[in-house]
């Protein structure tokens, strides 16, 4: 690990003659790197991670601004142009009412990306809070939270999702986020709990306690920051999983109601007939491509984050 960035004069004597003599401290001083700098330096070196981050940025910007720029509306029918192949005016073709598919896919992207993002946020919040409570408070709280986690972990996820989504009259963004988050917080709770349990006994926490630190200070200054790596990585990968799960549910007709919001999944929900009839391939391929690339990019970023946040990882390569 090389840490020296301070200039090293080729000839110390000459340097001392021309410049005011530097003190020992100044010569050997190393500018400290903040945690952010270290993180960013490592993240930037992860080629796939950068590809993923830039790709996600492009997809997000396209989903936000694409529909605004687009001359078409989400459901503007064009009855002279039904199920048209991709062309210059409709790069992704048109749907069964002549809607421009590019606009639809981008609008659906807004919903699918939000599902991923918000589900990850909600589930991460639940998982972190429960994990910290279980690990820090202990005793009865720990037992009950752990049993609850076991209960949710032992459950077959997809059947539950199907049954739970049936209880809603019609499912929109809010409902799907709540349902997905309710079924995905458990692994994080386990991780954060285990972390808190072991950190609680470490010397620096005991020292903080001995100095009279309040419980909240120990929780938020000592236990939480030491779990940040796991929490961030979990949240990122959960974005990918949620996008896939939402698409699956919507494909089965149990997810987001197509009449309320378009999502990549429900754009695909009626495509089986078209495929089996051997027609309108563009209606399947483009939403599908968007799902795969988005999830792929999110997973790239997740891997890069895992490497960049790993305290045991190599900070700098020897050549630097």
């Amino acid at each position, binding site marked *: 690990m090389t840490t020296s960035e301070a200039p090293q004069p080729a000839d110390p004597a000459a340097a001392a003659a021309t410049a005011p003599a530097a003190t020992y401290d100044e010569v050997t001083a190393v500018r400290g790197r903040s945690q952010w700098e270290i993180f960013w330096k490592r993240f930037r070196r992860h080629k796939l991670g950068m590809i993923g981050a830039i790709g996600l940025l492009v997809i997000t910007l396209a989903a936000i601004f694409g529909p605004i720029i687009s001359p078409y509306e989400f459901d503007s029918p064009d009855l002279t142009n039904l199920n048209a192949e991709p062309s210059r005016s409709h790069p992704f073709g048109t749907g069964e009412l002549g809607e421009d598919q590019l606009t639809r896919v981008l609008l659906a992207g807004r919903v699918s990306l939000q599902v991923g993002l918000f589900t990850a946020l909600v589930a991460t919040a639940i998982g972190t809070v429960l994990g910290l409570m279980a690990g820090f408070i202990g005793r009865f709280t720990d037992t009950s939270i752990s049993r609850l986690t076991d*209960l949710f972990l032992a459950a*077959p996820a997809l059947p539950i999702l199907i*049954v739970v989504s049936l209880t809603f009259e019609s499912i929109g963004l809010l409902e799907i986020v709540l349902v997905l988050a309710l079924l995905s917080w458990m692994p994080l709770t386990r991780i954060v709990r285990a972390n808190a349990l072991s950190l609680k006994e470490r010397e620096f926490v005991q020292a903080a306690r001995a100095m009279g630190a309040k419980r909240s200070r120990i929780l938020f200054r000592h236990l939480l920051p030491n779990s940040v790596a796991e929490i961030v990585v979990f949240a990122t990968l959960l974005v990918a999983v949620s996008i896939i799960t939402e*698409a*699956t549910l919507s494909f089965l007709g149990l997810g987001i109601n197509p009449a309320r919001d378009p999502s990549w999944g429900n754009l695909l929900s009626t495509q089986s007939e078209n495929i089996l009839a*051997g027609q309108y391939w563009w209606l399947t391929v483009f939403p599908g491509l968007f799902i795969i690339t988005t999830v792929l990019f999110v997973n790239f970023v997740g891997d890069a984050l895992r490497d960049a946040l790993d305290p045991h990882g190599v900070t700098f390569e020897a050549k630097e």
Partner: protein
Amino acid sequence: MIAYALRRLLIQLPILLVFSFVMYLVLFHAADPKARLQQIPGARAEDIQRIIEQQGLDKTWYEGYWGWLGDFVQGDWGASFSNKAVGAATLIWDRLPATLELMLVSLLLSILIAAPIGIYSALRRYTPFDYATTAFSYIGFAMPTFLLGLLLQMFAIWSQQNGWAVIPFTIGLILVLATVTTLLKPQRSSRGIAITAGVGFVLIWMSLAFWGSFGGDGQLIFKTAGRFTDAANGSMFSVDHLQHLALPVITLAVVNIAAWSRYQRSATIDVLSADYLRTARAKGLPERTVIGRHALRNALLPLITIVAIDIGFAFSGAVVTETVFGWPGIGRLLYDAALDGDITVAMGVIMLGAFMIVVFNLIADLAYAIADPRIRLA
């Protein structure tokens, strides 16, 4: 060990109980069979009343759950609301072989492909082969099951139009694309890359030359729906059955292969750096013996655990694949039952699924303890 297994199962019982209660509540709220009866056109009020009394639909949720639970533990899984001729248990048992078949075949295929891939890419780390399989598993992870199913159906229709030549064409395309991933990290000239790309191009060229000459007369090479063309007297060992089996099995296998090959890779890498391997090499054993007899035995152990756990979840995860391919298994049954508000059938399948997860989690632990003498179960 038997005592341990029994104790583990006993601990899980309350969890299953609470789980069944919650699921019953949700289903009871969602299904609402009474409202469904009311919607039947032309149904007379007294008929509705009679059916409600016959099937005990006027029970409150706690009466309903208590009655269901009592019957369920005694082996009576209740009457099916939508299919009155047979009970829920019969419906489920009839569908079970189809799901088990799909699971077992895809499982075997996945292990047979994933384990060698994982081991080989661990032995040849950072080679083009390693990069290509890594790329494959990234895509496998990012692919939703239903989308893969749809794409395979597309492939089936494509091969229907163009004949058997489509298959070598696709294989060739995959081989060529696999070599593309190695461009990410420029390599010294490698014989492997050259051969792979060469074989790929030859396959593509040959299949283009014979494009449409084999088949392509509108016959489906891969059937896109169902288990048999003639469901009444289909044979398990007919070509027709294989044609139906291929696509759903591939759909299930791709996800497994993507996950398990990565897992096998890291397990092998762990073993390769172990001290006892250095000892084996120092003794002068040939590399083949070191890898084949010393390393692989331990490297294959962790896969047992992950496979067992995944089997438990695969059981209830088959819903999507079975729905896409119209496979008459219990996943499809659950989907239909849930949509029809058929509480008893849906509860039966869900409880079976939860039970499988519990059992296979236990099997995972036991198998690992048997295979690895260092682990003692207490």
